[in-house]
């Protein structure tokens, strides 16, 4: 696993690497090198994919940049940091403890519909009108992801499988609710009625897109980075991610940590759903939360950052620009925006391969350890 405590080198390190490799490793080990390398690698890959698709990079890159930061688009890109960063947290928090949360779509949709339901059903005064639906959204996401925890700790069913299998039914359930009991009557569109004015997230600086959600998600990310680096809990999470059995031996309540991190991850995803619904266009529209693929953009960003909290915002920003810019490119020169998914997929495969190439030198045992079956 790439996440975890780094720097535990074996005392009897093997022979000196050749000069070229030594130089490479000096670059890799330099502070701040990881995000720079990740960005460079992603850009190279994007160029390769563009060329392979017969699209001129000279045409595509300006279109991506215009789509992401051009006139009127920048605030849209900034607003899009909310779902990407939020979904990155939803994956990263359990990932640090060695658990995979792939069910972000379900948690997102359930959180969104929970927020919409509360805002529509219970008119609340003042700040509560915003805070309560967001809390409900986070709770819904946490509960759904939390279901995976006992399956993992008591029955040995990997979270990666259970979260994913619970995701489709959750999305379907939200879709059912928005079509029938909670749907707006008479429009023929699967969406809830518009939420009351009081439940709208306050916009920042007169912007049409940027709301209070942006600073909120940034604060959450900062809190996570702080907890990960500076608190006992963060240390225990990293220890569990690095070596579960050793952490258990060291007195860490690994099962409780797995539950807590999965629930927290789910809460983040649910919260993102709530933030989307309480932002423009201020209603739950069926499919609008899951269709843009925020879940896997967040996962790709976390894996690209190798789970390191300091690098996650950087990779999230990069992939958000690619994502939003990709939509602009589609509008401008007709190249499908699924290009970003292609790049994200390739990035994950290559990062995984290179992460272990780097680790192979330190690995003592010669036997293959390519995965294990969840028995």
């Amino acid at each position, binding site marked *: *696993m*790439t996440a975890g405590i780094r720097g535990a080198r074996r005392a009897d390190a093997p022979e000196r690497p050749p000069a070229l490799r030594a130089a490479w490793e000096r670059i890799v080990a330099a502070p701040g090198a990881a995000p720079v390398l990740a960005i460079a690698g992603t850009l190279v890959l994007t160029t390769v994919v563009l060329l392979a*698709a*017969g699209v001129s990079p000279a045409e595509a890159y300006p279109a991506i940049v215009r789509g992401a930061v051009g006139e009127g688009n920048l605030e849209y890109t900034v607003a899009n940091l909310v779902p990407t960063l939020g979904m990155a947290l939803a994956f990263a928090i359990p990932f640090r403890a060695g658990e*995979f949360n*792939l069910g972000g779509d379900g948690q997102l949709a359930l959180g969104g519909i929970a927020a919409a339901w509360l805002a529509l059903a219970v008119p609340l005064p003042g700040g509560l009108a915003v805070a309560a639906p967001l809390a409900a959204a986070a709770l819904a996401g946490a509960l759904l992801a939390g279901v995976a925890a006992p*399956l993992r700790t*008591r*029955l*040995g*069913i990997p979270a*990666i*499988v*259970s979260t*994913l*299998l*619970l995701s*489709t*039914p959750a999305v*379907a*359930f939200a*879709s*059912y609710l928005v*079509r*029938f009991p909670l749907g707006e009557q008479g429009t023929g569109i699967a969406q809830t009625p518009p939420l009351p004015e009081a439940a709208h997230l306050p916009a920042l600086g007169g912007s049409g897109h940027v709301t209070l959600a942006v600073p909120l998600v940034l604060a959450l990310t900062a809190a996570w980075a702080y907890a990960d680096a500076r608190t006992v809990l963060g240390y225990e999470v990293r220890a569990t991610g690095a070596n579960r059995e050793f952490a258990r031996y060291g007195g860490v309540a690994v099962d409780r940590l797995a539950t807590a991190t999965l629930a927290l991850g789910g809460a983040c995803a649910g919260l993102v759903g709530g933030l989307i619904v309480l932002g423009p266009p201020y209603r739950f529209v069926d499919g609008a939360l899951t269709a843009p693929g925020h879940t*896997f953009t967040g*996962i*790709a960003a976390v*894996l690209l950052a190798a789970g390191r909290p300091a690098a996650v915002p950087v990779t999230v920003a990069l992939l958000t620009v690619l994502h939003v810019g990709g939509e602009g490119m589609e509008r401008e020169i*007709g190249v*499908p925006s*699924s*290009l*970003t*998914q*292609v*790049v*994200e*997929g*390739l*990035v*994950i*495969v*290559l*990062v*995984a*391969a290179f*992460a*272990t*190439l780097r680790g*192979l030198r330190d*690995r003592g045992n010669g*036997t*293959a*350890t*390519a*995965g*294990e*079956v*969840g028995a």
Partner: protein
Amino acid sequence: MSVLEATFAAAVLTATAPVALAALGGQVCAAAGVFNIALEGQLLWGAFTAVLASHLTGSAWWGVACAVAATTAYAALLSVPAVTFRADPIVVAVGVNLLALGLTAFLMRPVFGVRGTYSSPDLAGLPTLAELGLGGGPLAGILGPQSPLVPVTAGLVAAAAWWLRRTRSGLRLRGIGEHPAAAEALGLKVAAYRHGAVLGAGALCGLAGAQLALGNVTLFSEGMSAGRGWVAVVAVMLGGTRVAGVVAACLLFGVAEALGFRLQGEGLPQQAADAAPYLITLLALVLVRVRDRLRPVGGGAS
């Protein structure tokens, strides 16, 4: 057997076949000690390449052949990092799945000139057994509407069960999964067996994709694998080392899908029909695991 029952049984078989093929691949990987969760992406890639080749050549059989070849090649994207570089197969597989989703959606526009779903009356699908003059006899109602890949699936299932249990290479493969270090000490080429298992799973997923896109229906749509690869992963976990157990788990999924489809016609919301197969599969896994836990220690195998 009434016509209605036969139609239902046929629908179960149709729904089961692609999942069973993918699960068979997953089981071969599991036996070799590789946790393969890239089945979903490979299934989708197989479906896409099958439709693409059928579209280009006008022959569904070329579609099947190309899907098998292209998906075997695609599986190298998992096998090389995971086996040669010893990368985390789970992380690699997440990338492989995402790549398949992006690549197939991306290529649809230039290749088929549409987005979302491609279907055309000119697209050649697999013939049914009835059309080929096969599948007669007492089970005609069940077998007649199936594509020829359905009996092929049954044959492959039997062959895999026999191979894993009764042959030298099958035993070696299981030995590698059980204790790679010991197998290597005996002189077995662990990496070669694992490459073979992952690539073989790719070939099976190619076949599964061809059955899904040219047998079950005759079209390609974005993300049409729709979680079947994940159900296959669960089926492998349910069945453990027994091929029959894995197939039984796939049949459970097939029944759930066919039943959901049937009940939809009687007013069940489509969303419930979409959700049921995944919930039922997961529930089955939970029940089996709970039963295993309640069983006294040493009371049963695995």
